[in-house]
C-alpha cells in the first residue's frame, strides 16, 4: 500500500493545496465583495449629492436601472450609469437628467485612458460642457451638437459623448414608458 501512496503522493499533495486555496479564496471573496458593493453604492450617492444638492431620497428602479431622484416627495430628476469603450478600456459615466430632455450633468466614475492625454476627460472643462444641454444637443460641435472634443483625445471624448447620448435616449424611453 505505501508504495502506491508514495507514487500518488505528489498528486494528493497538490490537490490538497488547491483545495485549501480555493476555500480560502471563496471565503475571503464573500467579505470583500460585500465591501465592494457598499463602497460603490456610497460613491454613487456622493456623486448624486454633488449634482443635485437638494436631493434627500432616491428610488432605484430595478429593471430600467434608473435612479428616480426625489426632493421633498416630487421627482427632481433621474440618474443612471452609462458605459463607453474608450481608447484603452471602459469608461463608466454617471449621468444626471433634470427631466426627460435636459442633462443636469455627468461625472466620470472610472476610466483607464492614457494619462496626460485621454484622462483629461475627467476635467471639468470637458464634463462641464454637458450641463444644461438638451439630449440631442449632446454631440460634437461639427456634428450639430454643442460640445468641442479634447485635442489629441478624440476617441476618448467621442466615447463619452456617444455613451451619454445613446444611454440617455434609451433611458428616457424607459422613463416615459413607466409614467
Amino acid at each position, binding site marked *: 500500500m505505501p508504495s502506491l501512496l508514495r507514487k500518488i503522493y505528489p498528486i494528493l499533495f*497538490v490537490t490538497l493545496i488547491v483545495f485549501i486555496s480555493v476555500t*480560502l479564496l471563496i471565503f475571503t471573496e464573500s467579505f470583500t465583495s460585500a465591501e465592494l458593493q457598499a*463602497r460603490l453604492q456610497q460613491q454613487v450617492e456622493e456623486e448624486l449629492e454633488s449634482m443635485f444638492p437638494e436631493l434627500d431620497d432616491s428610488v432605484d428602479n430595478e429593471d430600467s436601472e434608473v435612479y428616480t431622484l426625489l426632493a421633498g416627495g416630487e421627482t427632481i430628476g433621474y440618474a443612471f450609469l452609462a458605459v463607453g469603450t474608450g481608447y484603452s478600456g471602459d469608461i463608466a459615466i454617471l449621468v444626471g437628467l433634470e427631466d426627460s430632455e435636459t442633462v443636469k450633468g455627468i461625472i466620470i466614475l472610472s476610466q483607464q485612458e*492614457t494619462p*496626460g492625454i485621454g484622462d483629461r476627460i475627467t476635467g471639468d472643462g470637458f464634463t462641464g460642457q454637458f450641463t444644461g444641454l438638451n439630449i440631442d444637443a449632446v454631440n460634437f460641435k461639427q456634428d450639430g451638437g454643442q460640445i468641442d472634443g479634447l485635442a489629441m483625445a478624440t476617441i476618448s471624448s467621442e466615447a463619452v459623448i456617444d455613451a451619454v447620448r445613446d444611454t440617455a435616449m434609451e433611458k428616457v424611453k424607459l422613463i416615459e414608458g413607466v409614467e
Partner: protein
Amino acid sequence: MASFAKEFSKGIGVSNPIFILALGLCPALAVSYSLDNALGMSAAVIFVLLCSNVIISAARKIVPKIMRIPTFIVIIATFVTLVTLVFQAYVPTLYQSLGIYLPLIVVNCIILGRAEAFASKNPVIGSIADALGIGVGFALALILISFLRELLGTGGISISLFEQLFNAGSLSFTLPAFSEHPLTIFVLSPGAFLVIGLLMALFKWIGRKKND
C-alpha cells in the same frame, strides 16, 4: 541577525532584481507610467513575495520534488488572488489602472525565481530576509522608474493613492516649464524601454567605476 542584514542588502544593491538581474521586467515596464501604480504594484509584490516565501520555505520538506513548480505556482496564485480581491474592494481606481498586470505577478520571474532558487532550500528566517530584500529592491527600482517616467511624461507627479486609502490629501506638484508641453513619449510604451535601458547602463557604469 547579521545574515538577515546581509540578505536584505543583497536584494537591494548587488542583486537588484530589475537593474542587475533583469528579472520581473513585465510589470516594471507596463505599469510604471505613474507613481500611483508603482506604489500599488510594489506593495502587492512585496506582500505576495513575503507570504509565498514564508509558506514555501516552511513547507519545503514536504513538497514532492517532481511537483515543485506547480505547487509554488498555486501558492503564489492564491496570494495574488487575495491581493487582487483586497485591491478591488479598497482601492478600485488602482485596481483599474493596474489592469491585467496585477494578476500577472504570478508568473513574474522575481517571485517564482526566489521561491525556486532560495525559499525552497533555506529556513524561514532567511527567506523572509531575502523576500524583504528583493521586494524592497524591486520597489525602489520601480518607484525610481515611474518617478522619472511620470515627471518627464506628464510634467508633474500626482499621488492619489493615499487619498483613497486613508483619505489624506493627494500630493501633487508640477514642473513649471514642463507641464505645458511634457515629453509624452515617456508615458507611452517606448519610453519605458528607454528609461530602463539608460538606468541599467548607468548602474553598470557605476559598478565598473567602483571596482576598477
